[in-house]
């Protein structure tokens, strides 16, 4: 029973991060119909930056803030410098370009920092606090839940309560009509990438201290998990991404805890195959069919 509680909390904590990361993918997908395969490496870049800044200043939080800001900038730069040029090309071009960015980013990080694992430190204790003798949840888990919750609420508020959010939604659904209504669609796309960069950076900062450590390829497994989460939720749905993330987090936690931690990547694969074959539109798709 203790173990079940532990795995569940751990799964939800991981799932919250996957949800955030999946949200980053959904933000970009909705606007551009591009899956940003470089999202993982972008997050790692910001995490390394946080590592350097934190080491230099001695403060975790300075690094944290700088990483979030740099995620925002990095997302915009990647869109403006690279992805804009393939937005109207066949979809495979965008996939290949994003993968090129993966190799480039990992190569550059390796050149600067080397390929050994570096510890990613957590700002709070990861030891679970006990309730009635049962270890339940760690301070770090609470921090993760809080950070992701604040993030989700902020994104939801941005989209539903602000003019910018209205423009971004309009541009995502009907770019041509939006332009006719005075929306600078190109700018909303850049903004979407920037926002995704920030969300991805946060997810990276939250997940790396949970046993992954810093490494140029550290986010590979997180990326595929989040991609699966996004597909589970339906790539178009931010709410679906959240639920998908939690589902994937729980599945991975149970598989890792009850079967074998080496089996978790295979569990991701199984889950993705199952969803794609049984419900390609995601668990929360409406009646509209989707070509996958």
């Amino acid at each position, binding site marked *: 029973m203790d173990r079940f509680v532990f795995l569940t909390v751990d799964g939800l904590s991981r799932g919250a991060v996957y949800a955030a990361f999946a949200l980053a993918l959904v933000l970009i997908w909705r606007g551009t119909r*591009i*899956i940003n*395969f470089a999202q993982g490496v972008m997050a790692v870049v910001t995490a390394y930056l946080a590592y350097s800044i934190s080491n230099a200043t001695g403060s975790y939080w300075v690094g944290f803030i700088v990483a979030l800001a740099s995620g925002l900038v990095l997302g915009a730069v990647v869109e403006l410098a*690279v992805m804009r*040029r*393939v937005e109207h*090309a*066949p*979809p*495979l*071009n965008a*996939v*290949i*370009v994003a*993968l*090129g*960015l*993966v*190799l*480039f*980013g*990992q*190569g*550059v*990080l*390796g*050149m*600067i*920092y*080397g*390929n050994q694992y570096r510890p990613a430190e957590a700002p709070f204790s990861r030891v679970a606090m006990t309730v009635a003798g049962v270890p339940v949840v760690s301070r770090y888990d609470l921090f993760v839940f809080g950070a992701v919750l604040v993030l989700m609420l902020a994104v939801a508020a941005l989209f539903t309560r602000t003019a910018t959010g209205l423009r971004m939604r309009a541009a995502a659904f009907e770019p041509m009509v939006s332009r006719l209504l005075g929306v600078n669609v190109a700018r909303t796309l850049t903004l979407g990438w920037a926002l995704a960069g920030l969300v991805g950076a946060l997810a990276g900062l939250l997940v790396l201290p949970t046993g992954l450590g810093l490494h140029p*390829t550290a986010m*590979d*497994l997180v*990326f*595929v998990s989040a*991609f*699966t989460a996004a*597909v589970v939720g339906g790539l178009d749905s931010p709410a679906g991404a959240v639920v998908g993330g939690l589902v994937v987090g729980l599945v991975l936690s149970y598989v890792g805890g009850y079967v*074998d931690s*080496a*089996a*978790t*990547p*295979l569990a*991701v*694969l199984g889950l*993705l*195959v199952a969803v*794609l*074959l049984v419900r*390609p539109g995601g668990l929360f798709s409406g009646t509209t069919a989707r*070509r*996958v």
Partner: protein
Amino acid sequence: MRNLGIAAVSAALLLALTYLLDPFRDYQLATAAAYLCAAAGLTVLIGVNGQLSLGHGALMAFGAYPVALVQNELADRGVSAQWTLAVSVLAGVAAATALGAVVGVAAARLHGPYLAGLTLVVAVAVPSLATLFGGVLHGDQGLSVYLLPPPAALGPDFPFERWQAWLALAAAVLTMLLLANLMRSRFGRTLRAVRDDEVAARLAGIPVARTRVLAFVVSAACAGLSGAMFAILAQSVSPSAFALTLSLNLLLAVVVGGLGSLAGAVWGSLLLVLLPWLVDTFTADLTLSPDLRQRLAGNLPLAIFGLLLVVVMIAAPGGVQGLLKGVLKHVPQVLAPAVRGRRRSAGGLDDRLQR
């Protein structure tokens, strides 16, 4: 038949070449040939059939591990002869083909980023099998591959690297010959038809799903052969040799060479071998700290590969072969017949990936 002639001539030339090169060059040549097996298969899948696979590194792992397992098992049982290598390689090809069939069936209905995502997950998930079945596969450490020295008939001083080059070149020439024939065959036209317009292909009576699965299977067999060759070259297999980066490198090879062109796959495979070597040679001349040199060693080529992938995709989606095609357009008519065959196979990416 024309292809058979070309294959025989290239085999003879390459054979002669291996005698001219020193063992290190022979090994480089062998590595390029091993890459070529997988790259050629991948270019048929992506360029000709329009299916993107990021999982070919995983398929190569499925080709490589059986070589280690079968070679070592037979050696343990006292069966030690050159012919066992053929059995091992076939086992590897069979295993990769089987995995390719499974992935191909799952992928048959998927397009664009979904297909890319699924195969990406395959690439990330498969290496974890080595840990999951650590008892047999020895986890991250991997297995060594038992190999006999070159046949005595080749002489006492015959370098092992040359023998490896022979094996890999034989595999590459065979792969190229089969794929070139396949692309010119009825099945090749079917592959293109499915790529260009699935609905039209279906209306024309082409079994689209089956064609896509078959393309994946063919491509997987090539990747298996390539993996088997890498097992022979490295004389060991380990998960880190078949990580996601390998899949991305293969993608680079086919994109930079020119998608859908077998000749492009040759350029791409050579690049995969030569660029890291050039970078090493270049950095060796610089005065660098040992630490920095070590960091640059694997990573500078990686960064250049990534940059190339981005730049080529944006600036010259036709790749090297596409650029050559552009140059050859201006060559006088006399040369035209020789060029025409190639020209057909090296179109811009937009033509072949419209979906």
